[in-house]
């Protein structure tokens, strides 16, 4: 018996799995790049200002920017992997449970990678800003703060790993 509250679930189930997949791929690359850009501007503005007084910090502190950039690369890699998982399915089988599962898997993978990279980029950016300012005052602090940044950038890696495992679930039904 279909009650009014189940009309939402009816509506969601009718959405094509390809919609979910496409949105997942978009989030994977789009939100990762948002995190990267955010992190780079946070680090970059402090780095430039601090380098006026202490020019020696510029070359070493580019590592912070590179860690942020790595986050965008993770997003691109996962987006490319996800788009290779897309396969055509005949329209009679488009709403089979298996193809729905494949669509949801790609969607989830995209969200995982996107948001993990967003916070990772932010984290590395803020630490990089503090790292530049401390390095300008006392150069022995740089290596120690770099360790914190390495732990921060591991967050993006976790997202990528789980995202790739999820995308392995994306097996579309073969033609019966």
């Amino acid at each position, binding site marked *: 018996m279909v009650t009014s509250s189940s009309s939402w679930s009816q509506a969601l189930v009718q959405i094509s799995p390809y919609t979910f997949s496409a949105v997942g791929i978009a989030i994977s690359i789009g939100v990762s790049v948002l995190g990267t850009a*955010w992190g780079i*501007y*946070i680090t970059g*503005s*402090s*780095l*430039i*200002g*601090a380098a*006026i*007084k*202490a020019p020696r910090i510029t070359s070493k502190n580019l590592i912070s920017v590179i860690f942020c950039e790595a986050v965008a690369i993770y997003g691109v890699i996962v987006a490319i992997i996800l788009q290779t998982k897309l396969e055509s399915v005949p329209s009679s089988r488009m709403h089979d449970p298996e193809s729905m599962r494949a669509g949801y898997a790609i969607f989830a993978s995209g969200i995982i990678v996107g948001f993990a990279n967003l916070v990772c980029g*932010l984290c590395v950016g*803020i630490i990089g*800003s*503090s790292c*530049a*300012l401390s390095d*300008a*005052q006392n150069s022995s602090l740089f290596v120690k703060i770099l360790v914190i940044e390495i732990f921060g950038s591991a967050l993006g890696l976790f997202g990528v790993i789980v995202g790739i495992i999820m995308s392995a679930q994306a097996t579309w039904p073969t033609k019966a």
Partner: protein
Amino acid sequence: MYGFEAMTFNIHGGYLEAIVRGYRSGLLTAADYNNLCQCETLDDIKMHLSATEYGPYLQNEPSPLHTTTIVEKCTLKLVDEYKHMLTQATEPLSTFLEYITYGHMIDNVVLIVTGTLHERDVQELLEKCHPLGMFDSIATLAVAQNMRELYRLVLVDTPLAPYFSECITSEDLDDMNIEIMRNTLYKAYLEDFYRFCQKLGGATAEIMSDLLAFEADRRAVNITINSIGTELTRDDRRKLYSNFGLLYPYGHEELAVCEDIDQVRAAMEKYPPYQTIFSKLSYGESQILDKAFYEEEVKRLCLAFEQQFHYGVFFAYMRLREQEIRNLMWISECVAQNQKSRVHDSVVFIF
């Protein structure tokens, strides 16, 4: 939202914050002060200072030097740095930086009005004004006869206009009224600055509240001590205290009725941060109270640098530079007058 400044502060303020932290690394250290205290003449001081960041400002001065020249050139460095930051700041940082100079504007106004009262030449007074507090039409202050004219002719166009509402009277300007005017203006300025910082919110509000509250309390104590034995009534005294700070409102009630230093001490010892200050003074001694307050202020200003992504660092830097210039002035005066034994009476080390 407090705690998330790190995400958006650097859009507008990141570059300037990094610059001001770079300036801070150029403050004189204890080693520099020790070298300066060992100097025999003002030329030695100039030589030592040329090895620090003040070098380019002092190198073209001919000997014989005067202490006022040294202080003037060092202040010029502070003004250059301030202008460099102000020109690159956006709102609300630019308003914040301008607020920092209103105190100097008030001091300049009072200087010119007092000087005119004592028949000094306007040009001579203008040269003594602090460069950070200059504004156009400051010279016309010499023309005014009473406060209403002062306001109408000159001050209505300056940023100090809103602070005048409490002190426009038609009384003629004399020494007592000028001091009351100075303190009333400063009270209005501090309260306005405090409200502005509260509106900014976040870490800026928290750190600036603490620094401004200390300033308000220190001024309350100084007003009390300076007005003991004068004809300032208790109600007038109470009107000069700011309406924020650790001492508000109960401490102000007690301070308003104090008649000598020991009563002030008894009133202040109820507040733990000020108890430590007053415990350094033995009974009956008030000369080193100034130094004790400066030391406490420097300690709090240095702590403002411990946190990132707020505007308090700009305020703290300006105040620390001013303290450094005060130190240099004291050292130069002691050296010039051959009183080297008294050098350490009033020098506050920053690091």
